[in-house]
């Protein structure tokens, strides 16, 4: 392989898409986080615009309702000067008519450069990525992965703690249905953190320990001496049957309150991917405690991380194209 032209330098992230964090190397993750750090600074300036993606088209394709993730991607694209279009599609109507692959082919014919896709079915984003020529970012597929959420969580922790190596992170709640939990488990373990998952047994997936985590049914025990407490949303919309008997019982044993938090390290940070169910998985007062909760910081990091991902995949795309020229 000949050396690429200067303007089209290969990035530290050699993949065409970002479909998940499973299998990413520490180097690749660090590359994205370092780049995101620069965008945090940019986003805090008065002029937040860069022209890196000028003339590029980014399509946000959301088959599942989302406000924050979609807005975050839209803003990220616009700050890099891309033409951004967001499409919200009710999956229930799609199911009956046009197939996912038809949708992919149709959009592909419009020559987008990056497709950002959220879908309620695990594996759907990968399936779509196989049918298009552009780069694809998984913005959440079923219970599988949500890689940009894990990246923004890692960036938030890294900026507060300097690094991930050796930290103990407790992920609490509906692990079974959570793509955020899976993406974080893969990414944070790769960066050297120790992960505990805390949930009632009905909300822990089969053989979760094989992903390199310790599991706890007792929240107090699980929180003991941990550095980071990551709460998950109780995904009531995905509930089928009786995973937990009642909300009040759930909050009593698995909700985060000051009493349980006391067992974690005194400076332990509280995180939540949002949107929160106050009084279900997290005490309202704790969520707003600016000394402990970094929930709003996570939202800020989200835009920076998504800018880094769009920038990187766009460069990678130009590099791959340049490489295939005769």
């Amino acid at each position, binding site marked *: 392989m000949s050396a690429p032209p200067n303007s089209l330098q290969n990035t530290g992230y050699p993949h065409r898409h970002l479909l998940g964090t*499973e299998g990413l190397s520490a180097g690749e993750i660090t590359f994205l986080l370092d780049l995101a750090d620069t965008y945090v600074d940019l986003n805090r300036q008065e002029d937040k615009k860069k022209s890196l993606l000028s003339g590029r088209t980014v399509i946000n394709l959301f088959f599942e309702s989302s406000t924050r993730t979609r807005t975050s991607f839209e803003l990220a694209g616009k700050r890099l000067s891309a033409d951004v279009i967001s499409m919200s599609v009710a999956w229930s109507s799609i*199911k009956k008519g046009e*197939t*996912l*692959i038809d949708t992919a082919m149709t959009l592909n014919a419009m020559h987008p450069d990056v497709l950002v896709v959220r*879908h309620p*079915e*695990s*594996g*759907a984003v*990968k*399936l779509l990525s196989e049918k298009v020529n552009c780069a694809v970012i998984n913005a959440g*597929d*079923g*219970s*599988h*992965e949500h890689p940009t959420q894990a990246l923004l969580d890692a960036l938030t922790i890294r900026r507060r703690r300097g690094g991930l190596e050796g930290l103990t992170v407790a992920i609490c709640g509906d692990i079974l249905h959570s*793509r955020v939990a*899976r993406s974080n488990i893969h990414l944070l373990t790769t960066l050297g953190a120790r992960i505990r998952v805390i949930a009632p047994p009905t909300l822990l*997936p*089969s*053989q*979760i320990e*094989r*992903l390199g985590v310790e599991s706890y049914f007792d929240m107090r025990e699980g929180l003991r001496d941990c550095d980071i407490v990551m709460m998950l949303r109780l995904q009531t919309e995905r509930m*089928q049957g009786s995973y937990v008997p009642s909300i009040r019982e759930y909050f009593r044993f698995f909700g985060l309150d000051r009493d349980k938090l006391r067992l974690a390290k005194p400076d332990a940070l509280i995180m939540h991917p949002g949107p929160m169910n106050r009084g279900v998985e997290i005490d309202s007062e704790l969520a707003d405690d600016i000394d402990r909760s970094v929930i709003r910081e996570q939202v800020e990091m989200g835009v920076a991380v998504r800018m880094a991902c769009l920038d990187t995949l766009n460069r990678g795309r130009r590099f791959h194209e340049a490489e295939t020229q005769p």
Partner: protein
Amino acid sequence: MKPVSAALKAHEQVAYVNARLLDPATGLDTPGVLMTDGAVIADLGPQLFADGVPEKMTVVDCGGHCLAPGLVDIRVQLREPGDEHKETIESGSRAAAAGGVTTMVSLPNTDPVIDDVAGVEFIARRAREVKLVKIYSYASVTRRVEGTQLTEVGLLSEYGAVAFTDGLKAVADANVMRRALSYARAFDQVIVQHPEEPALAHGSMNAGELATRLGLRGIPAAAEVIMIERDLRLVELTGGRYHAAHVSTAAALERIREGKARGLKITCDTAPHYFTLNENAVGDYRTFAKVSPPLRSEADRQAVADAVTDGTIDAIASDHSPHDQDSKRLPFDLADCGIVGLESLLPLSLELVHKGSTTLLDLLASLTCRPAGILGLPGGCLEEGAAADLVLFDPERPGRIVPETFRSKSKNSPFDDHPIQGKVLRTVVDGRTIFDADA
């Protein structure tokens, strides 16, 4: 090899010379000659025509390859009536012929469901018109496979239904199963179960580490063994005849082994994918490997292979489930279950022989006389006076599975490019050659 004219003259006599005659029903394994007279086997043996084949008799040189009873496949879906874009009785018959299958039994999960006499007669009439392989049909245990009201078991039996099953659905209600087993005794009929507790089967793959990584809902092995355990109790209670289809787990096989030892009238089958593949085949969301019950752990796969060897599994059926691209090119959870299997049945099964885990005769028994015996079908043996339903195959010839070349309308096989050893050379039904690999 000299081709036989397609239209067989009445009482045309054919001598299949230079054959390795294999009859699993009698244990025969000898070089020799088999002679057919019209639609039946007239004679066979090592000494037949030792002094030369009589003139005017058509001669087929088998080249030393194996001549065995045609395969009897007791679990296929032909999709007619209702889903003719996936398969028809004709395309399915051609696939069967190419796979060495001379008798097959079709599941009732068509549209409409085969739950009345007209449905059974329709299948029989279409089979007569297509006139390739022999097709028998199951009728459903319950009307519209809804799991509540029994079908007319007696009348359906009179009109040719060979057994009763709700196909891809378990008979979930214990009392309905109890009555079905009990009532079918009056007509000496078998109830064939899809052994899976539906309440535990809200998922799309085997429960375990891989399902957790892929974010897919898993079906635990317990879903199978719970249903088998329940059904064996009901067999004890009723004295009914019971057959468990496509058994996939070590635990269920252990229960079946014990049940047989206790003297219960039970049998079971499996499909080649359950002893060839494990759950890893669905990694990367490969929907072509999505089946029901799901592919299981490596330990389960091994247990299924062992159970074929020790005879706990009576029969191997293809579980032929044709699907078009649109049914499979979907997010994993939404894709249909099933593998198109008629044309890979024999070569995939032969792997068990090549690996040394079973003998050629034992394997053939599970593909011919034993499945025929379970449902009381004629065929499955080389016997004077029996129908001349034969398969000629080379068990050694290496190759690869190429789904694009399948005769089936559907190509949904996870075995694309899978290396195999063994090839069907010729298939004969009622003395007529209906498939010739060299033609």
